């Protein structure tokens, strides 16, 4: 199956070929996990959302139009599963914000190694609105076009450009501050 391109795999999967859909899961599983984690953070919730989204996609594969790109279709289902789970989690966890959550940014003078740098970056990412996170991850990390992201998030392309712009600016500002203040 590895020699078949995405469109070919999607056509086979739409016709009910489990091996073809399995190959698509292998191809996009990591990407789907990053998208879900950009919404829900690293943890079991994100993995559950990816699993729910992939199962939903496999069950709905008969409704996929093979004439359209597959990955935005798949990623939309996964992103929706993660957004839904996030909403349910927020309802469950509604309550006063703990004082420790006011600033998730670790003091820069302690962030001296690679692991802490990554934690800083994650913290900066988590401060963004969830749709901005999805947009910047899909655009800069996964190489999606603005049009594809618009398809995933079901918003106009101009809105996606705005999401990416604001997310990049916030991430660069946070990381610039981190790099300046790090010893």
């Amino acid at each position: 199956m590895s020699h078949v391109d995405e469109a070919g795999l999607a056509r086979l999967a739409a016709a009910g070929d489990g091996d073809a859909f399995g190959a698509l899961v292998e191809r996009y599983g990591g990407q789907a996990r990053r998208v879900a984690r950009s919404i829900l953070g690293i943890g079991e919730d994100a993995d559950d959302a990816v699993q729910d989204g992939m199962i939903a996609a496999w069950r709905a594969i008969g409704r996929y139009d093979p004439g359209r790109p597959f990955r935005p279709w798949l990623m939309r289902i996964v992103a929706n599963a993660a957004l839904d789970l996030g909403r349910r989690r927020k309802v469950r966890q509604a309550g006063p914000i703990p004082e420790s959550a006011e600033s998730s940014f670790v003091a820069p003078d302690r962030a001296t190694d690679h692991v802490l740098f990554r934690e800083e970056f994650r913290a900066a990412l988590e401060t963004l609105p969830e749709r901005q996170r999805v947009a910047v991850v899909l655009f800069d990390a996964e190489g999606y076009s603005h049009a594809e992201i618009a398809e995933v998030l079901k918003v106009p392309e101009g809105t996606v450009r705005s999401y990416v712009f604001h997310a990049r600016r916030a991430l660069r500002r946070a990381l610039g501050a981190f790099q300046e203040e790090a010893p």
Partner: protein
Amino acid sequence: MSEQSAFDNSPDPELGAQLRAALDTADGDLFVARLRQTVLAAGREDSWDVLSRWAPRGLVAAIAAAALLWMVARPEPVAPAGPMASAPMQMEVAPQHPEAAVLTVAILEGR
């Protein structure tokens, strides 16, 4: 972080790499292998699943449509035919008033 502007229309490879590193963990391959297995084991929705999901709604819609059709197209109730039933109708709808002589006879006989 690269020197690209936030307005750039092309992906920033350095930012992309930072994002992937921030969101990936070492168990990525294991996760994808397990995911593949779970998804395919869950099975596809076949046409019976689709039908069974739609059946209750379809049944309600069919009953409602049949009731509406019956209300619109039902025949008017027909009165039973016969001399007893038709006589008063004929009297009520008599096209002419009775003549004065007939009325006078009736009054006299009643006396």
